[in-house]
């Protein structure tokens, strides 16, 4: 047996029930020192209070359902170690995501998030992407270098899921999102960017860029870069928003140039532009 050091960790948990004022409850639970925050939440539910509600499914940062705020900062409790957020004394505070209606305790209604993702229409599978290294962080950091990879005969190419796990953390971190329910939001815009990269039909491209260009599209971003800082999956939504802006600005100038031409040759401005510089690593 490998010995396991147990911790008595206090959690200060946001509690809310419809029709009642919200409050915090403090629970002290026992978890291993290697445990993640989700394990401590599990212990609260299993051993302290069965009425405690929270969202979770995969416990390995794939489903995106358990997102919440730990000591005020958006995180996935399934990949956040207790020891990394606990100072050894003060309770670890758990709050629901911001900018979403709270349903109960740590459960928020994420429908506004999924409406945006549906509007962007990005499929979660991606193809024609480089294969290894497929890591969130550069493999070089781990001392392993990539090599060219052959694709099995049965496949035309490897495919994998998009980095975005739809955890909605970015929408909670974004200051504009606090007041503007019409804003497409970081994940929605990053998804539009990815869908635009995958689109091969000019009318699809025009539609996607049209979505991004609305008053509540990319131009509602005011460069706080909180989404990119909070994203657990290195999607870099702010970077994608800026890449979309670049393309929109280029098109704006093209439109202006055509309007200025003495004889306008065509009214179709929707020819696809080349991929922008963030082409390689998408959402």
């Amino acid at each position: 047996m490998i010995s396991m050091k147990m911790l008595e960790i206090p959690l200060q948990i946001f509690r809310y029930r419809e029709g009642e004022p919200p409050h915090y409850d403090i629970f002290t639970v026992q978890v291993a020192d290697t445990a993640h925050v989700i394990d401590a939440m599990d212990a609260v539910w299993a051993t302290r209070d069965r009425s405690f509600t929270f969202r979770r499914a995969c416990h390995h940062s794939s489903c995106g359902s358990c997102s919440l705020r730990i000591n005020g900062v958006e995180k996935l409790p399934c990949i956040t170690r207790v020891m990394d957020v606990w100072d050894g004394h003060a309770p670890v505070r758990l709050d629901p995501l911001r900018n979403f209606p709270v349903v109960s305790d740590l459960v928020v209604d994420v429908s506004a998030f999924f409406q945006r993702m549906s509007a962007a229409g990005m499929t979660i599978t991606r193809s024609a992407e480089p294969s290894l290294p497929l890591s969130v962080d550069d493999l070089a950091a781990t001392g392993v270098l990539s090599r060219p990879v052959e694709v099995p005969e049965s496949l035309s190419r490897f495919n994998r899921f998009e980095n975005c796990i739809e955890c909605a953390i970015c929408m909670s971190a974004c200051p504009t999102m606090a007041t503007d329910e019409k804003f497409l939001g970081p994940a929605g815009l990053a998804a539009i960017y990815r869908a635009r990269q995958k689109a091969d039909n000019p009318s699809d491209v025009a539609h996607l860029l049209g979505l991004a260009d609305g008053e509540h599209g990319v131009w509602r971003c005011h460069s706080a870069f909180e989404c990119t800082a909070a994203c657990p999956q290195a999607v870099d939504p702010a970077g994608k928003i800026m890449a979309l802006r670049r393309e929109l600005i280029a098109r704006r100038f093209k439109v202006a140039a055509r309007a200025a031409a003495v004889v306008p040759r065509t009214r179709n401005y929707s020819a696809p532009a080349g991929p922008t510089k963030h082409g390689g690593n998408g959402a």
Partner: protein
Amino acid sequence: MATLNYPKIRRAGRWFDVRRRRLGMWAYTLNRITGIGLVVYLYLHLGVLSLLARGQSSWDSFVSLARSPFYLGLDVVLLAGILIHGLNGLRIALTGFDVGVRAQKALFGILMLAAAVALIAAALKIFGD
């Protein structure tokens, strides 16, 4: 506390909530505060300039008042707002054109350092005269 369907004006408080946030949020908040402040100042300034239309005596009496150390101090505050807003605006413009996005934090740091240096120099000049 979570957002429990508070009215929008209360939620707008989050624009200025930098607790446990990163540098980008400070930039966002500072830009908003200075921006709103400068709009208010602009209209105050235009209002004061109407004294010019009332003739020499009204203006010159205002000028002698405005040369007091208190008003000079306000000038330094104004200048600080202008420098922060203007230089951070350059960061927003650049990143908005997809330039220097990855270096936005460093960019903000350098620009704010420049703002601080310029402000100190200007304050010395203003009070030195």
